[in-house]
Each structure stands twice: as C-alpha cells, then as structure tokens.
C-alpha cells in the first residue's frame, strides 16, 4: 500500500489541490461565493493542522523520492498554509468591498498554494520546477484579476514576461546540472558535484531563478510594480506565502544539493544580500505609496534572509526559517491594515500623505498597524526583533561580521520609512474629515490574532526556535557526513 503512504505524506497538498478543483467546478455551475470561500478556508485550515502535526513527526521521502515530508518541509508547508489562510480570511471582505469578488480568486489561490506545497517538499529538480511554475502561473493571473483595470493588467503582464524570462534561466540551469551529474535528485546531484564549468554554471543559473522569485536585487525590478498593481490582500499573499515557499526551496537546494566546497555560493549570496539590503532600504525611504514602500521593504527583508543563508550554518538555516514565519505574520498584518484603509472612499489611501490623523479615527486599526510596523522594524518585544536577532547572531557566529554590520545599518535606515506612516497617523492633524467605514468582525479579528501572534512569538519564541534548531541537529550531521 505504498501509494497510501505517499498520499498521506503529501496530504496537505492533496487536500488543497482537490479543493482548488472543486471550487472551480462550483464556480462554473453555481457561482456561490459563500460555499467557495468556506471550502477554501476549511481546506487551508485542515492542511495547516496536518502540516503543523507533521513538524513533530518523522522525516522521510515519498513518491519515489520526489518529495520529502516532516522537518523543514513540514515547517515550510505550515508557513505557506498559514499565510494563505490568513490572506483568504482578510480577502473576502476586501474584495467584495472593492466589488471584485470572483470565485476563481479562491481557486487560483488554492492551486498556487498547492504548487508552493510541492515546492517546499521538493527533493527533485523537476518537482521544484513544477512547483514554481504552478505557483507562478496562478500568481500572474491573480495579479491582473481585476479586469479592465490598467494598473492590474500592467502588473500582470510585466510579472508574466519577466517571470517567463527568469524561468528560462532556471530551467537551463537544471538542464546543465543534469548534464553534469546525470541525475535530477537533489542528493544524487550533491554526490556528483564537481567544480567543472558545467556544474557551476548550472548551479549559478538555478540560483538566478530563485533570486528572481525571492526578489533579490538586481532581479527585483518587477516587485514594486506588481505589488502596487495587485489587489492588496493578494499582494499580501504574494509577499508572504510565495516568498516563503521560494526561500524554503532555496534553503533546501543550498543545504542539500550544492556543497559549499565545490562552488563558492556563499560569496555570491553575500554580495546579493548586501545589494538587496542596501537598495531595498534606500529606495523604500523615498516612497510615498505605502504599497510600494512595503514592496521595497519586502525586498529589504529578502536581503536579511539571504544573510542567514550566506551564513550557511544550521544556526543560520533555522534563523531563516524562524524569520520567514515572523515575516509572514507581520507582513500580512501590515498589508491587511493597508487594505482596510484603501477601501475607504474619498481619498487615495495608498498614499502615505493621506494617513494624517487616521490613528485616532479608528484607534484599533491604528494600533494594529503600529504593532506590525514596529515588528517590521525589529523592535522588541515583537517577533520581528527575534527573527532579526537570530539572523544577526548566526551571521556573527559564522564569521560574517561585515554582513552583520550592514544588516544593522540597513535596519536602522528602515526605521525611517516604517515609522513614517505612524508619524502621519498620530502626529499630524487630519486635513479633511473622511468618515471611515467599519471593518467586519472576521477581518478585524484576523488582524487582532496576527497582532497577538507578533507579540506572543516575540516573547515566547523559545519553543519554536528549539524545534527549528532540532531539524538541523542529528539529521544534519548524518546528512553531511553520509554524503
């Protein structure tokens, strides 16, 4: 009964993919948004519970070694599903408020999520490719989901063109790696690793593909345009779930497939990390549109994450995993509040200049946004601080002092643009009396839960951190020695 074991190993993915197909069918025949939404939430929640349980279970392979389960993959799945679930929870109210709630939003989101789950569980280059493409194609469509809107269409087309371009590099890299080693399995490629040109060029192009997906500089150019043009709650999904999936996959590839001694990838990642941190933060400073600001901020965070990967130690990897979770919580929260302000009539509420005095109008939303922004800055006791601290410590322990210093300086610069909306919200008088619509109970409670989580994991992070570190203790050593 091997196939039962296989399906069980990838059960969250199977559930989510099936739910995606069922919702398409419902949408085609009944156009009943309520049941589509309900099914979406239910399947994501079920998947999330299964993945979280899987984190504490055994580690192994399934589908003839195409995927792995448990450990890092389970954690990656949990983060992706967590992000997808919370984005869906805030999406319904937002999309119906802007009058663009379509059934296919949920289907596409589910299928994209299934692709991400394949990506974070991948143990084979083909699996990685299928995962990335399933995810990306859905995202291209989601970016332009609001038909007839110019900015959305532009976002969608740009994303698609550049995405296709980068996929070319990714696939070429895979082909070269296959040529060099004769295998597509990550562990077998690692065994056949050498320092000949074919292998290294393959690895380099593969890295480029990933750099594009995580929007590292200079492969980041699509990010601000796409984030700005996409409906905000979908942007939250892109910025968190898809980025987390890509990062987990990159982490798996680096830790499993490309031994550091055959290619000096740490050096490349170091340079890219510096570029990403510096450029992301610098350009974020001059943004007036809060969605673009958050887009550059997400680029900057990709830079911090790359620092953890450059460290290349178990400590660095577990710090990256923790950071992904932290980043997901606080970013969905921030985009959520932005989505709330944005649906108000009268003014363009993506422009930070229009945030004047908002903090006192709806105190809860103001406080929530402050929570998330403080967390993004990395101020204790919020989770963002812990994440940044772990990465910082890992970089120092691995001897990357320069990286750590740049990280600290870049974070210091980021204070400016994160605090700016708060200054407008609390320290400036509102220039016009714009009545704010009350948000729905689900929307509000979702954001409150996220805020509570930023605080909870900012204080009681010990257990999660220990769990993440345990992924890299015993298994890690046998893995390295065994190869």
């Amino acid at each position, binding site marked *: 009964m091997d196939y039962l074991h296989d399906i069980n190993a990838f059960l969250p993915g199977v559930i989510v993919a099936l739910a995606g197909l069922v919702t398409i069918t419902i949408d085609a025949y009944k156009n009943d948004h309520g049941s589509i939404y309900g099914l979406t939430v239910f399947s994501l929640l079920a998947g999330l519970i299964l993945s979280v349980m899987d984190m504490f279970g055994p580690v192994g392979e399934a589908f003839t070694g195409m995927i792995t389960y448990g450990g890092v993959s389970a954690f990656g799945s949990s983060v992706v599903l967590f992000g997808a679930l919370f984005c869906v929870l805030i999406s319904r109210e937002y999309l119906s408020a802007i009058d663009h709630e379509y059934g296919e939003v949920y289907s596409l989101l589910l299928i994209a999520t299934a692709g991400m789950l394949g990506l974070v569980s991948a143990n084979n280059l083909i699996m990685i490719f299928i995962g990335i493409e399933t995810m990306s194609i859905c995202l291209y469509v989601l970016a332009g989901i609001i038909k007839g809107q110019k900015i959305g269409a532009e976002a969608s087309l740009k994303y698609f063109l550049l995405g296709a371009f980068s996929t070319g590099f990714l696939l070429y890299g895979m082909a070269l790696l296959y040529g060099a080693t004769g295998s597509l399995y990550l562990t077998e490629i690692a065994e056949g690793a050498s320092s000949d040109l074919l292998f290294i060029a393959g690895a380099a192009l593969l890295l480029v593909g990933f750099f594009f997906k995580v929007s590292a500089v200079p492969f980041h150019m699509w990010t601000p345009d796409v984030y700005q043009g996409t409906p905000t709650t979908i942007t939250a999904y892109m910025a968190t779930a898809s980025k987390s999936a890509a990062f987990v996959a990159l982490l798996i590839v680096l830790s499993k497939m490309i031994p550091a001694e055959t290619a000096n990838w740490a050096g490349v990642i170091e340079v890219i990390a510096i570029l990403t941190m510096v450029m992301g933060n*610098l350009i974020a400073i001059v943004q007036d549109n809060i969605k673009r600001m958050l887009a550059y901020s997400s680029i900057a965070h990709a830079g911090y994450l790359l620092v953890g990967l450059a460290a290349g130690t178990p400590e660095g990897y577990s710090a990256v995993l923790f950071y992904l979770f932290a980043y997901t919580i606080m970013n969905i929260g921030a985009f959520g509040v932005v989505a709330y302000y944005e649906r108000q009539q009268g003014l363009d509420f993506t422009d930070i200049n229009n945030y004047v005095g908002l903090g006192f109008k709806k105190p809860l939303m103001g406080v929530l946004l402050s929570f998330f922004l403080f967390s993004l800055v990395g101020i204790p006791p919020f989770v963002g601080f812990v994440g940044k601290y772990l990465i910082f410590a890992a970089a120092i322990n691995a001897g990357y002092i320069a990286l750590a210093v740049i990280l600290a300086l870049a974070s210091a610069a980021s204070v400016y643009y994160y605090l700016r909306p708060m200054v407008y919200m609390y320290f400036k008088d509102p220039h016009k009396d714009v009545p704010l619509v009350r948000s729905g109970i689900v929307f509000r409670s979702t954001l409150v839960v996220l805020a509570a989580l930023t605080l909870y994991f900012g204080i009681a992070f010990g257990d999660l951190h220990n769990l993440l570190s345990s992924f890299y203790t015993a298994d890690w050593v046998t893995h390295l020695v065994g190869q």
Partner: protein
Amino acid sequence: MDSATTLTSLIIALPLLGFLVNGLLGLSSKSFRQRKALIGTIANLTVFIPFAIAVYFFINMGQDSAPIFVELFTWIEVGSFSVDIAYQLDQLSILMTLVVTGVGFLIHMYSVGYMWEDEGYWKFFAYLNLFIFAMLNLVMADNLLLLFLGWEGVGLCSYLLIGFWYTDMANSAAGSKAFWYNRVGDFAFLVAMFLTFQHVGSLDFDIILSSLEAIPADDKFWIAFLMFIGATGKSAQIPLFVWLPDAMAGPTSVSALIHAATMVTSGIYLISRMSAMFVMSPEVMMIIAVIGALTAIVAATIALTQNDIKRVLAYSTVSQLGYMFLALGSGAFTAAMFHVVTHAFFKALLFLGSGSVIHAMEHVEHGLHEEGKDVHFDPQDMRFMGGLKEYMPSTYKTFLIATIAIAGIPPLAGFFSKDEILAFTFNAGFAGFAEPLYMVLWGVGIVTAFLTAFYMFRLTFGTFNGEFKLPEKISEAAGAEKHLHESPKSMTIPLWTLGGLSVVGGFLGVPNFLLSTFTHQEEHINLLHNWLYNVTADYELGLSHSVEWILMTVSIFVAVGGVYTAYRMYGSGATEESDAKLADRFGVFYETWKEKYSLDEFYEGLVVHPIVRWSDKGLAKFDMKIVDGVVNTVGGVVRLFGSVFRYVQTGVTSSYALALVLGVILVLSMLIL
C-alpha cells in the same frame, strides 16, 4: 499541565486578561466605556479569582513544604544564559501573593464607587489590573530578571496612575518625578544583577542562594549594597524617598494600593528573598538599619507638620517603610514581612478612609456650587475639616481603628509587628557588629514610635473631632455640613473588612515569650515565624524573657504617651492653635520639619538645576548643531541616494530584463571566475 501549573498560570494570566479586555475594548469602543458595572466586575473578578487560588495554595502548603516551581516557557536562551518565565511558590511568595491579591481586591472594590463618576473609569481599571499583573510577577518570579520585569512594570503603572488626571501639569510632573527617582534605584539594581550573573552564571533565586560561596566577599558587599539602593528607590527610603509624597497626586485608591500596601514594599520583599546573602555582609546590614531608622524619624517629624490629609499618610508610609528597613538591617526579615502585612491592612485602610473623607469634601464643594455659591477650597486640607465623625460614622470608626493599630496600642495589628522590630533592633545590639550603633537605632525607633502615635492621632482628631470648620473659615460656605454624607456601601465594606484585619492581623506574629514565660519551655506561637523560617535567614533572638517583657512595656508606654499627648493637644479638634504651640516650642526644628528638611530644594540645587543648566547651555547646542547636523546630513545623503536609485525603476519592462541579465552575468562571473 498539572494542576499547580494551571492554577499558577491563572493567577498570573487573569489580571493580564482583565487589563487586555478592559483596555482594548475601552480603547476601541466608546459604548463599552459607559458600561461601568461590567468594567468593574471584570476588573474585580480578575483579581478576586487569583486571590481565591492563592488561598487554596496557602491551605495546601505546610510550613515545611518544598517550593513549587512552575515553568511556563523559556523566555531568553542565548548560549549558556537562559531565563525562563517561571514562578516559584513558597511560603514567602504565597504570603505576598495573598496580600497583593487580597488587599488589591478590596481596593478594586472600593474604587468601583470611588471612581464611578470619572471619565477614565475603564482606563483606571485597566491600569489597576496591569499593576496587579506586574506585582504578581514581581513577588512570584523565580529569577531576578523576571522579578525585575515586574519591578519595572509596577513602576510603569505607578507612573501612569500618579499622572492619571494628566490634564493637570502638576500631576504629570509628580508622575515623572516618581519615575526618575525610581530610575536611579533601578540602575543600581541592574548593576547588582550583572554582578550576580558574572559570579553565579544564573539569575535563578535557588541557584544564587545555593552558590553564594562562589561570590567573593567584596562583590557580595557590592551586590547587596546595590540591591539595597534599588530598594531605596522603589520603597522610598533616604535618599530617594521624596517622590512618594508627591505621588499622592494620583487617585486615593492608587495611593492605598500602590503607594502604601504593595509596590513600595517590593524592596523589602527583595531583601527578604535574598536574605541569606544579605546576612553575609554585616556592613550592608548596618547601612540598611541606619537608613531605615533615619528615614523613619525624618518622615515622622515631617508628618507632624503637614495639613494635607494624604500627605500626612504619605510621610507616615515612608516612616513605616523605614521601620521595615530597620527590621531588615537588624536581621529580622520575618518581622519586616510581618510589618509589611499589618501595614498593608491599616495603611490601606487609612488611605481608603481619607479617600472617603475627600470624596465627602468634594461633594460639599459640588453641593455648594449647585447652590450657586462660588466656593473653592482644598478638599484634602484638614484645616477645613473637623467634626466629621457625626456625618461619617463608618469612616470615622474604621479610621480610628487603623490609627490605633498604627500607633502601636495592643492588641491591634501594628503593636505586635512594631514591637518585634524594636526587640530585634535591641537584639542586634548584642550581635557582635556595631553593637552601640544598634542601641542608638533602637532609641531612634522608640522616639519614632512616640511620634507616630502622636501625629496619627493629631490627624484623626483634627479630621473627625470638634466642629466642622469649613463654615467658619469661609463665610459663604455656611450650612455646608448638610452636604456631608457617608460614602456608598461599595466603599464602606472594604473599610470594615480592612478594619477587621487591622484588629486581628497582629495575632499572626504573637511573640513566643508571651507564652513560654508561663510554661517555662520553648513555644512556637509566632505563626509567621513558623511559616517563614525556612525561607528567611533571621538572626537568633537571644534576649531573656525579662528583657523582652521590659521592651514590650516600654513600647506600650511610649505609644500610650504619644496618644495621650495628642489627645491633650488636639482632642478638641483645635488643630491650628496646637500647631502654633508646637511651632513655638520647637522653633527652628519645627521650621525644618515643615520645610521637609529642604530635601527637595537640596536635590533641585545639587542635581536637577545643574543638569538642566548644563543641558540648556551646553548639550542643547551640541545636540542641535552637531548631533542633529550629523543625523540630518546622513539622512539627507541616504535620501539622496534613494531618490537617485529610484530612477533605475523606469517602469519599462525591457530595462528590467536588462537588469536581470546584468545580474545573471554578475552571478556567473562570480562563480566561474
């Protein structure tokens, strides 16, 4: 989770929950703010249930029970340094928890009535619950860092509540003053913690106390000394006590809870908790005793001269805290904790009673305004009071009970605890270190006991005896007494409960010799000693029974003498005339007391003024020109770069693709070359 863990988490979590519910709902919903009954119920329940749980723990814990350790989660773990959010339930922490939640609950209940008409009702209770949460962390923590967290938390709540009526600048200033004086102490406490960690490598109490020999004697002195400095800040001792009288700017129930019964005793708790370390450095013990005795007498003499009913109580609190430090310095940790408990009863009662009086006086003012009379007076000034016992019988009776208790008349609560402190101070005169000095301190303690009885009865007589003086002071206020009335039940019930406790509280610590003189064998009737003997490192009491009898007789005579003198001078309610006589008799001394030893002016001149001057003339310029200049330049350059780089983002897809290709070339060249 076993039941101990669940119950402990409940004790800690419920006040926090109350804070969050009242705070967040109050913040987000205007209609919730009006539902005062609901807000009050939430706030009261979230303190009462922890009290009930603490009682349950207390019943199930024997005097020899091992401490229960409850570890909720690992908070910080860096290398070998690890701090847990973990709590320790032993005899000492249960005692403090009972006081904090029990007295805290009564004061919450009282506040329901007292604050009913205040606009910030929800905020008040949210802060009050937050305070209880922080205070419970302080007394239940099993390590110094968590204790410090609670320590800072109560400091924050104290600041927020002193400045609760923040629209008046004076109140905000008082809040800031409390905060700043506490910072000085906190800094010393932090350094003490660093030193401890350096030598022991852990901040857990049981590890520190079991590895004291790892700390060199010199550093033991410094750790103990710095911790004591920390305690002088929080517990308002010389030289850092001047913030406490100003802290009376807050609502009266806050003064009762934070600035009398609980927070200000945390310094005493800290030293009792670390008593095994303190007894190892007799020098520090001596310093503590001296500071305690000095504070006691200085504050008592100031209290003689004050007319603001709450300020008298504030100085009285400082003075009683001084007694507790005298006890600590004499190796009488149990006696100090005993006085903490009894003082919590009668001083909370005194403050709540004064609140009831102020409440009534404010109603008089309101009533007069409604009659159309434009009368303004200070509702806290006892010179406008007098004769209130007719109108406020419950308040009068309970206030009188508390006064008798604090004066040290047997068998009320204050008598036993104060007597034990004095006996131990006398005892420390034979302990082998600075013996004559302790004898002097005993003398100071006796004098202070006389003063305490005197000034407390001056206050009671002046407020409640004689005639109501407002109408004669302000002619327009004629007939104002018809506006005087007793406070509502929700305020008098806590008064009577605390009154009962002030009567019987002393029987917790009846000295052993009272019985063993007659049975001629060793007796253990001092319940508190039996309860705490495992936790605190008290000195042996080596006095003979006859000496103890003599000491007790002396303190009774002194207390009765104080009361009698006060009765002769103030019994008729003639406050100002008798004050004038006192001023005549003591001349310069009285002036000094009235000027509060000019300590505020002294600090103002020595510390505040030079700093302000220097900041204004020197640092401000440096800050504006150099620091701001550098920051602005850096910021400007960064922004400049940002605005240059943003033009890379052309919006043209083909240029994006170009950047991508350049990136590919970069990566390839780095890897291959």
